[in-house]
């Protein structure tokens, strides 16, 4: 399953400041400015949304903002691409259920 890489032979990952956010109401910690998807994976979350009709789980797929498979609800805004949206302190992130209508999630 996903996890943080603690040591790498080539890459020096920047020491990002940790910050708190909530996912489906649960308190979690991620690196400030990392993609929301990275913060979720770091916390062992890999189901980001469920499809409209068959309620199937979906997650990260292209990782660079092109496919929109990884969308979540951020501060009430649905269809937010988690792989390219930076994590901010205190974000309220939710699993997106279905196509994501504003005001009716």
């Amino acid at each position, binding site marked *: 399953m*996903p996890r943080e890489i603690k040591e790498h032979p*080539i890459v020096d990952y920047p020491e990002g400041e940790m910050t708190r956010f909530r996912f489906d109401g649960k308190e979690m910690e991620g690196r400030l400015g990392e993609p929301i*998807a990275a913060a979720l994976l770091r916390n062992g979350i*890999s189901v980001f949304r469920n499809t409209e009709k068959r309620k199937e789980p979906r*997650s*990260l797929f*292209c990782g660079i903002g092109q496919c929109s498979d990884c969308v979540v609800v951020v501060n009430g805004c649905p269809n937010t691409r988690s792989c390219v949206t930076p994590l901010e302190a205190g974000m309220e992130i939710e699993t997106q259920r279905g196509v994501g209508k504003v005001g009716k999630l």
Partner: protein
Amino acid sequence: MIKTEILIIGAGPAGLGAAIEAARLGAKTLVVDENRKAGGQLYKQIHKFFGSSEHYAGVRGFQIADKLLAEADGLGVEILLNTRALGLLDDGTVAVLADGKAESIEADKVILAVGAKENALVFPGWTLPGVMTAGAAQTFSNVYGILVGQEIVMIGSGNVGLIVSYQLTQGGAEVKALVEAVPDVTGYEVHANKIRRAGIPIYTSHTVIEARGKDHVEEAVIAELDADFQPIPGTEKTVKADTILIAVGLNPRIELAKMFGCAMTYEGALGGTQPVHDDCMRSSNPKVYVCGDQAGVEEASAALEEGRLAGIHAAISLGKESADNAALLNCARASLASLRSGAFAGKRRLTKQRIMEKGATYYAG
């Protein structure tokens, strides 16, 4: 409205190459990129490049990006990040969304350097969390320090499949199997040997026929393929895995080129449908240049050289002077040709020739 002489869309190797050369010749150059960081996919490439020193042999991808960005900065290139090009407006300007705000850019020449996107592969279970492109795994591992999974099955033995497999082992994952549908490894032997030395089993004439799991991949079913690429019954093997990565090629991003009316051609060897261009990287639309993976999927070094050529020609066409314009263009062409001269580059070279012959018809006479 923003005005510039040359607008470059995409700040990867092609776009940066174009920007550096155009700015060096004195053209007012603006680069826009939808990402929050310039450099395109180079920042994910933590391996050393091949070739000659002029093509940054022995230098890692992210170090090349640093060099290019420093060079562009020194030449006064302006780069607008988090700025997505949306398309062409009726008045000929380019619409962009800059930090969420709509804006339009008027330019004398537009250089499209928007890259390519990874191909998907469809099999039962391919939508399960844990099935993703190799590029996604590479991005998250090499840039953000997150291993997307620990037991990997890789589909595709091209350079992306081989390199990403190796890089994931560097991050601490175990690659349980690398499958390749054709009978031979398709990437460079030097990468394949690294994989073999790392003890990763390579299954040629094999593919993944199913991903199984409830809310996440738990196992991959692989099978041997016959000469018609059909799974051979009875050869199925189940591999315990939490991640299945797809590395089965890329295809050019052509949406903007289509909006600009650039004529297209189909070349399977370079990824599919792409705009034609001449030997100066001009598309069929004289205002628009195309370069990099979007003009046929090759490698970062080829993208960079195509970008340089496009930047030089665009600046010269706007009346910018160098000591010897013809020599400058020929030098860029020669550098590009040398990248396509190796033993493994024959198909790319011939395909590019065909594309350039088509592109040249728009500028005959």
